[in-house]
């Protein structure tokens, strides 16, 4: 008895001790950490009743539906009297009420936010599919062509509205036919509805895989239970639609006026090709050859875009939505069916696009897809990145277009263009960019085992190699999100810069060793190599420039900040880019000259050793065609462009200086102002980089003070000079693109404005001019008011 009472504690103590001992071995540190954390938690005031209450209310543990606990007491009059005692602007608020609660509140009776508004209590709940069938308000068979066209067009409008960021439930699934396509007897309608359901699944997949969506772009999560009711079989969609089309076409032949039926056929055919194209994008990952797959996609897109005018011409043949009704089509839609099942913080009030503009959207989307297919031609990083940047500028607003481009380019993080490993792609890219002899497989130095080893280490084990991949992915995000992602990307460049510089110096070291060994050929190939660091730096500079200038596009900068934002690229960044490109060109030139020189030697002494001869010939083969095709200066265009950018930045910088000195720029009140903090904040992502070294605020201030010394008139003249230079450079470009023409107009206008100001125009009026960014995202036209 006694023992049995005593035993358990003993036993417990023993097990506890054993367990503690065991833990002590393995988890000593973890335990300590955990304990420390616990301490700090309670020290931080987690036991505070205030905080406890916040936690409780946040977790939703309190159930509002259990109230009233006592009973409702009418206080309407009392309440209003009490409120009337408050002063205008005065609040009576709970002590836990703050800005967050205020901002997250939905405004009741606001048509944009309050979905429950105007809910007539006499109304029946919105009909479901079964209810609608039972009531006989939707037909399942023998639909007229007008009804079919109306439903098809309405569904396309819903699809477009979905792609624009609305919830799937609130747009597509207001169509009752989509809830149970298998129960539809009418074959064209059943085929079309099944296709739409599958299209939803495929599009969702593409967007998820591409991963360049943000919550503001796209509502990924809808009521998937609705989709799950019938299985998706995307592979069977095209044949199914084809069959229905064929039978309709056969029927048409017996009709005296087949136009209406043909309009149905066109829509089914359009759906088939659009679906095929998008489905093939999803299958890219498994495609044997990326070229073939993209060819197929392109063909489908072509057919789809050819059908578009036929469809747009026949929109009026379908049933049209009733005026004042929320339903996109009189039959088959139940607009409010999911309103009460949506979470409260959802974007509530939605407006489905009208039919003509939906088809316009689809037409534009198809041409964006076609443009995206061109990515297959960009086989190296440099041109692929350019393509992505361009694409984002032109088509950055459509989430599906952006995702399709990502899928077409790389089906997974490690693979590019079908089955090419990322590592190889980057290796190839450096070779295209500045052609280091060590990467040229034909060059004898490439077989040097030590060289091989270093290269392998760099391309395979450098984790930050992913930075390059990341840069391309970032270009797929929406324009606003690109900026903060770029900020983080720029930080990552530092490690890879260090690694690239190390690789270059190893190559130089090897050059010395080989020279000592008397291996002249290898030594020359390895010497003065800055290939890798130049390549990395160039890409880093580009990220920095895009980051900085995107602030103008996103309207983040105040006018009084323009000065240092334009100053940095003028003084440093654009210059760095130009010098990186010039250096690259020089390297390429020197190599070609050297190759020519070598081949001449070889040609003269044709009796010399066979091995050397071979390599000489091979190099001739590889070097010559490129030289002829791309001329000697492959980066000339870009360098010229950057020269123009440099002058424009210089012009804006000095114009801002002159305007500031002239008192025409509104400055913040000094008691709220700290320029240093703003400056540091604007250049924050650059601080972590070793190269280019960060420029402190003090340095900037020195430079600016020095620059600001001349008189206002002189400063205006200086700015005018810069704009004039920019104009000269831009005019020298042959076959200019629209962007160049726009920049030209900006340079010309600003040149005139600066001259006018230099001559003392509106001297007494110290009004801030307008900065009109409508022509270009980065540079404004300065307009005097």
């Amino acid at each position, binding site marked *: 008895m006694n023992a049995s009472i005593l035993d358990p504690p003993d036993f417990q103590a023993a097990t506890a001790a054993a367990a503690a001992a065991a833990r002590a071995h393995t988890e000593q540190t973890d335990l300590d950490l955990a304990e420390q954390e616990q301490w700090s938690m309670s020290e931080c005031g987690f036991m505070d*009743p*205030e905080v406890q209450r916040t936690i409780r*209310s946040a977790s*939703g543990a*309190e159930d*509002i*539906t259990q*109230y*009233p*606990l*006592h*009973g*409702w*007491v*009418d*206080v*309407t009059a*009392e*309440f*209003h*009297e*009490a*409120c*009337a*005692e*408050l*002063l*205008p*602007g*005065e*609040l*009576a*608020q*709970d*002590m*836990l*009420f703050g800005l967050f*609660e*205020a901002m*997250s*509140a*939905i*405004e*009741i*009776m606001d048509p944009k936010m309050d979905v*429950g*508004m*105007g*809910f007539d*209590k006499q109304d029946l709940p919105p009909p479901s599919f079964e209810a609608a069938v039972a009531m006989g308000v939707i037909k399942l068979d023998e639909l007229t062509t007008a009804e079919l066209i109306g439903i098809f067009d309405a569904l396309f409008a819903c699809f477009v509205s979905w792609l624009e960021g609305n919830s799937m439930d609130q747009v597509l699934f207001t169509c009752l036919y989509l809830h149970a396509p298998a129960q539809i007897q009418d074959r064209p309608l059943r085929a079309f509805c099944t296709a739409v359901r599958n299209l939803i699944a495929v599009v969702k997949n593409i967007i998820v895989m591409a991963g360049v969506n943000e919550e503001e772009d796209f509502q990924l999560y809808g009521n998937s239970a609705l989709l799950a009711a019938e299985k998706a079989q995307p592979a069977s969609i095209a044949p199914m639609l084809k069959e229905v089309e064929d039978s309709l076409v056969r029927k048409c032949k017996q009709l005296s006026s087949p136009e209406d039926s043909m309009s149905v056929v066109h829509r089914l055919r359009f759906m088939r090709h659009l679906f095929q194209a998008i489905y093939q994008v999803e299958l890219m990952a498994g495609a044997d050859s990326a070229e073939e797959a993209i060819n197929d996609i392109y063909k489908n897109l072509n057919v789809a875009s050819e059908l578009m005018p036929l469809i747009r011409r026949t929109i009026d043949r379908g049933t049209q939505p009733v005026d004042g009704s929320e339903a996109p089509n009189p039959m088959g839609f139940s607009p409010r069916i999911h309103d*009460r099942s949506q979470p*409260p*913080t959802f974007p509530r009030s939605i407006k489905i696009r009208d039919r003509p503009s939906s088809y316009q959207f689809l037409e534009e989307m198809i041409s964006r897809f076609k443009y995206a297919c061109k990515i297959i031609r960009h086989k190296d990083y440099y041109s692929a990145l350019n393509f992505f940047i361009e694409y984002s500028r032109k088509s950055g607003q459509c989430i599906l277009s952006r995702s399709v481009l990502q899928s077409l380019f790389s089906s997974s993080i490690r693979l590019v263009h079908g089955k090419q490993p990322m590592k190889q792609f980057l290796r190839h890219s450096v070779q295209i960019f500045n052609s280091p002899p060590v990467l040229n497989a034909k060059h004898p130095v490439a077989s040097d085992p030590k060289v091989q080893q270093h290269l392998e280490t760099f391309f395979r084990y450098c984790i930050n190699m992913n930075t390059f991949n990341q840069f391309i992915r970032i270009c797929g995000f929406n324009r606003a999100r690109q900026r903060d992602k770029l900020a983080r990307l720029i930080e990552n460049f530092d490690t890879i810069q260090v690694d690239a510089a190390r690789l270059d110096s190893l190559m130089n070291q090897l050059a010395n060793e080989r020279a000592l060994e008397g291996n002249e050929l290898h030594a020359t190939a390895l010497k003065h190599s800055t290939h890798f660091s130049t390549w990395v730096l160039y890409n880093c500079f580009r990220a920095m420039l895009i980051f900085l200038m995107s602030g103008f596009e996103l309207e983040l900068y105040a006018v009084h900040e323009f000065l240092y934002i334009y100053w940095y690229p003028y003084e440093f960044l654009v210059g760095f880019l130009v010098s990186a490109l010039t250096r690259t060109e020089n390297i390429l030139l020197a190599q070609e000259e050297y190759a020519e020189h070598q081949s001449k030697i070889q040609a003269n002494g044709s009796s010399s050793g066979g091995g050397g001869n071979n390599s000489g010939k091979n190099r001739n083969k590889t070097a010559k065609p490129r030289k002829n095709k791309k001329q000697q200066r492959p980066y000339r265009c870009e360098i010229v462009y950057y020269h123009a950018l440099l002058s424009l930045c210089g012009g804006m910088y000095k114009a801002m200086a002159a305007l500031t000195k002239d008192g025409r720029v509104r400055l913040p009140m000094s008691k709220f102002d700290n320029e240093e903090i703003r400056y540091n904040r604007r250049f924050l992502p650059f601080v972590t980089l070793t190269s280019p070294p960060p420029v402190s605020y003090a340095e900037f201030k020195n430079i600016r003070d020095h620059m600001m010394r001349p008189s206002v008139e002189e400063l205006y003249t200086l700015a005018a000079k810069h704009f004039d230079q920019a104009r000269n450079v831009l005019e020298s470009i042959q076959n200019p693109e629209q962007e160049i023409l726009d920049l030209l107009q900006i340079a010309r206008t600003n040149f005139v404005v600066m001259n006018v100001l230099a001559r003392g125009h509106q001297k007494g009026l110290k009004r801030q001019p307008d900065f009109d960014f409508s022509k270009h995202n980065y540079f404004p036209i300065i307009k005097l008011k």
Partner: protein
Amino acid sequence: MTDLSVTGSQMQVKAPPPPTPISEPFRITTNAPHQINDETLSPGRRRLQKWLGRVLRIKISDGRILVGFFNCTDRDANIVLSMCAEYLVEGEGQEPRLLGNVMVPGKHIVSLNIDEPKPASSSLFL
């Protein structure tokens, strides 16, 4: 009335800091400990103060009923409720829709009810 100050007395673990004079445009009446027993407040403010944090039931102009914790109000009786539940019609046995934080514009308010024990006279009937 005594049970109403439960939150207030709980909060008074710390010594109440001296009431800071608030400049007029930012004036705030709250149920925070330093104000809860402030005798100088006008009767209306004291009444609002006592209701803050309690459950309020609002009937609005389109007939819906909103029930939630009373968080904030102003001169125009715009009211912020937290953890709000929406009922389409009055009466028992309905499934409410949970809305989270809502702001009810004063002009849409039809009637207000607070959850509290009935005054002494009516409590006889309970």
